[in-house]
C-alpha cells in the first residue's frame, strides 16, 4: 500500500518542491539538477517506457488478426509496418557506401559510374577529373544491401578503377541520407504525415462554414471579423476603398435602425442621409483609397488582430497560467491524488 499510495506522492512532492524552489537557489548541484538532470531523467524513463507501448500495440493488433475482427487486414498492415521499421532500424544496416580510391582512366570508370549516379558518361568523367589528386570519390547515395554495393565495386574494379565498400556505422545509419531507414522515413512516413496535415485545410474550410452561420450575435461578430481579417491580409483588401466599406456600414446601421424602430421613414432617412453624408465627405476628401483609415481593410484587420484579439488571448493565458499553477500546487502538496488512481 505504501508503494502504491504514499511513495508516489512523496516522490512527486519532493521533486516538485525541488524543481520549483531550485530556480531561486544559486547552488551548482541543484541548478544542474533543475536545468538538466530532471528533464534528462524523464527522457530516459520515457524512452524505456516506449517498450511498454510497443508491446501493447503489437498485442492489440495481433489479437485483432488472430480473432479476425472487423478491419483485421489493417491490423496486419500495422504489424507488417512495425516489423519493417524494426528490421530497418535494428537488424538490417541498409547503408553501404562505395568509395573509389583510384581511377587512372576516368573515362573508363565513368562508363560504369554514370549509371550509378544518374549522369551521362562525359559529366561523370569530368567530375572524376576535377577531383583533387589523391582524394577518393564517394558515391553519395549508399546501397541498401552489401551484395548490391559489392556488385558495383566489382564493376568499377573491372573498369580499371579501385573501389571498396564501406559500411555506415550502426546508429549513424538511421540518419544517413539514402539508407534504408532514411528512405522509409522520407518516402513512406513523411508523405503520409503530410497527407494527414493537408487534410487540415479541408477541415478548416468545413469548420469555418459551420462556425460562420449567422445564428446569434457572437456568430455574426465572428463572421464579420473573419471576413475583415481574411480580406485585409490579401492584396485585394488593399484595393477595396475605405469608402466602399463606409457605404456598407451605413447600410448595416440602417438595417439596425429598421430592426429597432420598424419604421420605413426612419429607415429611409438613415439610408439616404448616411449615403449623402458619405458621398459629400468623399468628394471633399477626394476619395482616397485608404482614408478614413479605420475603414481601410488592411488597417482595420491590423487593429482587430493587435488589439481585441491580443486582449482576449492574454486574458485566456492569465487564466491558463493560474490554472496550471493551482493544479501543479495541488499535485505537489498531495491534495490531488487522482493521477495515481486515488
Amino acid at each position: 500500500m505504501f508503494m502504491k499510495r504514499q511513495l508516489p506522492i512523496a516522490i512527486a512532492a519532493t521533486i516538485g518542491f525541488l524543481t520549483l524552489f531550485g530556480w531561486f537557489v544559486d547552488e551548482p548541484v541543484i541548478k544542474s539538477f533543475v536545468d538538466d538532470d530532471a528533464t534528462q531523467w524523464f527522457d530516459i524513463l520515457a524512452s524505456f517506457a516506449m517498450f511498454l507501448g510497443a508491446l501493447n500495440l503489437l498485442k492489440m493488433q495481433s489479437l485483432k488478426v488472430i480473432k479476425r475482427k472487423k478491419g483485421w487486414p489493417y491490423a496486419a498492415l500495422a504489424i507488417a509496418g512495425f516489423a519493417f521499421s524494426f528490421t530497418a532500424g535494428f537488424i538490417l544496416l541498409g547503408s553501404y557506401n562505395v568509395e573509389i580510391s583510384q581511377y587512372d582512366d576516368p573515362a573508363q570508370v565513368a562508363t560504369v559510374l554514370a549509371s550509378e549516379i544518374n549522369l551521362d558518361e562525359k559529366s561523370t568523367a569530368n567530375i572524376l577529373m576535377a577531383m583533387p589528386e589523391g582524394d577518393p570519390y564517394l558515391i553519395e547515395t549508399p546501397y541498401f544491401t552489401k551484395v548490391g554495393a559489392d556488385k558495383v565495386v566489382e564493376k568499377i574494379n573491372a573498369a580499371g578503377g579501385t573501389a571498396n565498400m564501406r559500411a555506415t556505422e550502426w546508429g549513424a545509419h538511421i540518419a544517413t541520407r539514402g539508407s534504408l531507414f532514411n528512405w522509409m522515413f522520407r518516402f513512406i512516413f513523411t508523405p503520409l504525415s503530410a497527407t494527414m496535415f493537408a487534410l487540415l485545410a479541408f477541415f478548416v474550410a468545413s469548420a469555418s462554414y459551420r462556425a460562420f452561420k449567422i445564428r446569434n450575435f457572437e456568430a455574426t461578430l465572428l463572421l464579420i471579423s473573419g471576413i475583415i481579417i481574411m480580406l485585409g491580409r490579401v492584396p485585394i483588401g488593399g484595393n477595396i476603398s475605405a469608402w466602399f466599406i463606409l457605404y456598407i456600414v451605413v447600410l448595416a446601421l440602417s438595417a439596425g435602425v429598421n430592426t429597432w424602430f420598424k419604421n420605413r421613414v426612419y429607415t429611409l432617412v438613415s439610408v439616404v442621409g448616411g449615403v449623402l453624408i458619405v458621398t459629400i465627405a468623399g468628394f471633399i476628401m477626394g476619395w482616397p483609397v485608404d482614408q478614413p483609415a479605420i475603414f481601410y481593410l488592411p488597417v482595420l484587420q491590423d487593429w482587430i488582430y493587435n488589439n481585441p484579439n491580443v486582449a482576449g488571448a492574454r486574458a485566456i493565458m492569465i487564466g491558463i497560467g493560474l490554472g496550471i499553477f493551482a493544479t501543479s500546487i495541488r499535485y505537489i502538496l498531495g491534495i490531488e491524488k487522482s493521477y495515481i488512481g486515488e
Partner: protein
Amino acid sequence: MKDKQFWSVAGIIFVLFMIYWFAGHPYFVAERAVMFWSVLVVGGVLIYSTRMAKRGEKITLRSIPGLKAVEEAVGRSTEMGKPVLYVPGIMDMDQVETVAGVVVLGHVAKMTARYETSLNVPVSRAIVMKAARESCRESYLLEGRPDLFHDDMVHYLTDDQFAYAAGVNGIMIREEPAACLYMGKFYAESLLLAETGNSIGAIQIAGTASPSQIPFFVTACDYTLIGEEFFAASAYLSQDPELIGGVKGQDYLKILFTSVLLLSVLFFSLNIFEQQRSSEWKDLKHKTNLNAEKAISEFWKNADPVSRYQAVNRSVLEPGAERILNKYKNLSYSDLSKRQKNSIAFTTGTLFWIQLPVDNRMELVNQTFTDNNQSLYDADEEFRQLEIVKEGKNNWNQMGEAERREYKLKFPGLSGVDLYAEIGKETITWEDHEVDWAINQRSIPVIKNILMVQ
C-alpha cells in the same frame, strides 16, 4: 483571517526569510526575489482557500455547461449502446494538461462503470497509458464493477502526432462512438479529431489549455472547456471541498492580478515613475522626435512615388494601385498626417519616441543620466566593487570544472567574494553597467526592483 494556524505558519516563514535575507541570503538568486515572493503569495492564497473550504466554508461554483454535459454524453452512449471515446491529448505526463486529462478520465471512468458503457482510451505515450490504466482501474473498483475493467480499455497507438490522429480517426470511423471527449494537450491534430467526430454524429466535449487549439474545438465541438475551466473540471466533477477551495483561490488571484494591472496602467498613464518625470526623459523625447522628423522629411524629399506609397502603407505596391501614385507624387511632407509619419518611421527605422519599446526608452534615459553625472559615476567605488563581485560570481557559476580549477590555481588562497572580485576585474566591461548605476540612483527602489523583476 479565521485560520490562525495558517497565519502563524505564514508569519514564521516570513520572519525566517527576513532573517535569512539580512544574514546575506547565501545561495539565493537575489534578482528573483520578487518572483519568489509572488510564488509564495500565490501558493499561500491557494492553500488558504483550500483550508477554508475544508473547514466547511460554503463555496458555489458557477455551472460549466461542458462539465454538466459529460454525464449526459455518457448516458447518451449507454442508450445508443455505443462506446465512449476519451482522448487524453498527445503529450506525456510531464505536461500539467495531460495529468489533468488523466484526472478527468478517472471521473469519466466512474460514470462508464456506473452505466456499464464501454470506454475506449487510445493514448499517445506509454507512461500516460500506465497512468490512465491505473486511474480507470481504481474508478471501476470504487464503483464496485472491477469485472467490467480490462487493460485493453486503455491502449497505446503511436507517439507520432499525425499517425496518432489517423489512428484515432480510424477508431471513430469504425467503432462510431456516441461520445468523444478530448481532454489534454493538443496541437494541429485537434481539428482533425474534432471534425471526424462531428462527421460521425458524436457528441463532443473538449478541454484544453492550448490557446491556439481552443478556437478549433469551440468551432467543431458541442462543448468546450476553455483554459482554467479544464483545470477546474476535477473540482467540479468530484465536488471535493479541497479542490473547490482551490478554484476559489484562483478567483481571488485573478482579482489581485487585475487590480495590479489596472494600477500599473494608471501609474504609467500619470507618469508616476521617476524616469518619466526626469529631465533626461523629456530631453531625449524632444531630441528623438526632432531627429525622426528630420530623417523622415529627408526621406520624403528624395523618395519616388512608389517608395512613398510603400512607406506610408507599409506594404508593397499592389497591382492596380498605380492610379493613386500621382497623389503621393504631389503630396508634400507638411501634408502628411501623424499616422502616415508613424508608418514611414516604422518602414525607415527612424522611430519616434512613442514608438520605441519601453525597455529601449528606459535604457536611453538611464544611459543619459549616467552621462550627465559622469563624475559621480566615476567616484562611486562602492557600486564598482559590487558590480565587479557580481560579474565574477556570474562568470564563476557559468564555468566548467576545468576553468574553475584554472582560476583557483591563478589566485591561490582566495575563495568566495575575493575570488569573484579577481575574476570580475578581468572580465568586466563597464559600458554594460552604466545603465545599472543610473537605475540604482533612482529614489523608488521598491518600484525599480519590481520593474526589474526577471
